[in-house]
């Protein structure tokens, strides 16, 4: 427990302390003038910080929306229909989850370079979506399976069309599932904004928070209190989303592995 939380506590504590208190060796445990000064000053030290924050949110939102667009029909199909190669293709999806993006970087880099897409948002979104699709399909499939098929059949007998069934039965009933999968995709893509970002993008205007802050570590004197403050600001959104919805997310993610 201490092991897990100490880094966060220390990050927060360091962010409150003045820089000259941090730069004392050996480590001082006590500072008498704690303040949120670093949280004001960081906007000057990291001038592009608002832009990084915007980029992180923008990339995560676009990535998760695109993921959902691909995943909804596919998951519905897996939940409702029987067809050849159904199980084997589901296992292939699981296997994709095990490949790190690092293996695919070389061809992707070359292709993006040929099409002049390096240093754009697309360069980070396109590979990001691919790695979210597999888990998202598995998750959403299990939600769709919970909607009783009788409901659909009854509507069908009553003369409803497929589109009507989708709009009036499936959509409302699967909203909770869609929300959970959407949040999974958002957190997932927010968290994966490093490898693709440092590889495919050198432009500051498009950097998400992690790669933007990482740049500053290379400088000779790192203003650690501001760095920690900025990091915490970067962490906050996912942490807040997660705290509110942790019950659903954990239940969704573990149900596949455990009940299987």
């Amino acid at each position, binding site marked *: 427990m201490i092991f897990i939380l100490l880094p966060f506590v220390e990050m927060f504590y360091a962010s409150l302390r003045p820089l000259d208190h941090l730069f004392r060796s050996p480590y001082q445990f006590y500072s008498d003038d704690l303040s949120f000064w670093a949280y004001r000053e960081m906007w000057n030290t990291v001038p592009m910080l608002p832009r990084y924050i915007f980029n992180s949110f923008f990339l995560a939102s676009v990535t998760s929306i695109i993921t959902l667009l*691909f*995943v909804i029909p596919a998951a519905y199909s897996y939940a409702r229909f029987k*067809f050849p190669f159904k199980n084997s293709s589901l296992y292939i999806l699981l296997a994709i989850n095990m*490949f*790190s993006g*690092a*293996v695919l970087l070389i061809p992707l880099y070359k292709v993006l370079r040929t099409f002049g897409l390096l240093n754009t948002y697309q360069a980070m979104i396109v590979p990001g979506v691919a790695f979210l699709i597999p888990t998202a399909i598995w998750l959403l499939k299990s939600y769709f399976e919970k909607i009783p098929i009788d409901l659909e059949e009854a509507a069908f007998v009553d003369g409803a069309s497929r589109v009507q069934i989708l709009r009036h039965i499936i959509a409302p009933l699967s909203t909770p599932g869609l929300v959970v999968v959407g949040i999974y995709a958002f957190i997932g893509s927010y968290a994966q904004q490093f490898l693709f970002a440092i590889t495919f993008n050198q432009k500051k205007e498009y950097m998400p928070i*992690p790669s933007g802050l990482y740049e500053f570590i290379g400088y000779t004197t790192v203003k650690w209190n501001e760095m920690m403050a900025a990091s915490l600001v970067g962490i906050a959104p996912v942490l807040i989303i997660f705290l509110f919805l942790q019950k659903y997310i954990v239940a969704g993610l573990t149900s596949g592995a455990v009940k299987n």
Partner: protein
Amino acid sequence: MNQKLKSYTAQTYIAYALIAPAAIYIILIVAWPLLETIRLSFTNSSLAGEDYVGFENYQKMFSSKKFNGIVTRTFVWMFFSVSLKLIIGLIGAVLLNANLKGRSIFRVLVMPPWVVPIAIGMLGWLWLYNGYFGIIAGVGMRTGILDGPFGFLAYKQSAFISTIIADVWVGTPMVTVFFLAAMQGVPRDLYEAAYCDGASRWDRFFKITLPQITPVIITMSLLSAIWTFNSFEIIWILTEGGPRGSTTTLIIDTYKQALGNYKFGRGAARAVVVMILLMLFAGFYLALLARINKKISHE
């Protein structure tokens, strides 16, 4: 009969049509690059162009002492990291499953390292490991364990251990949560029966809990091995594979060759080795999963 057959094929078409967009996307962004990587590994591709060179990349790679060292190091790193994650995860899950006060809060509090972007968490660890001003060096100096500033990431062995610890920090929460979920799935009456038979707490753990959650332990160790093997950001941010290559794992080496030096051919050869190892892991995992599923459906 004819009608039924017709509707069956129509359904198949609909099913495939619905899956097609996702499938095509995956083929373009995942499957094609995998094949292209294999092709590139037989060339000397770089920013300048490419020529077919046969097995040259592989020959050079396998005859280099450095590469063999990297493979060994990757497995040692993985072994320690995965074992620690499993042990700490199991202990953590037992504690969280016990009837303690405030356990629901603790259950939430174990999770942050898992959800927070790894890269940002590592910025925090960089500060903790700071040799002059970091808290770990500070505690060491105050207690007299260290006699002066000590850069944890600046020396070969300490950097190796430090990256493992950071990796364990990232990976343990998920293991814990899965173990906990498995423990909660163990039927209550098993415990009640054992309780009536006068089994001790210890007995109950080793004779009921442990055997019941073994499938999850096995799957989690494989999954966690795969993720640890793939771990990139942690090492990259903390040490970039240094000092003097002491934390360079296969993934880091692949990345450095391919995108540090733009030697795509050599990088691709390494990526192929990574792929083959991953496929072995994945095959193992899927075979296991299929077996467990079969066993459950038989019962």
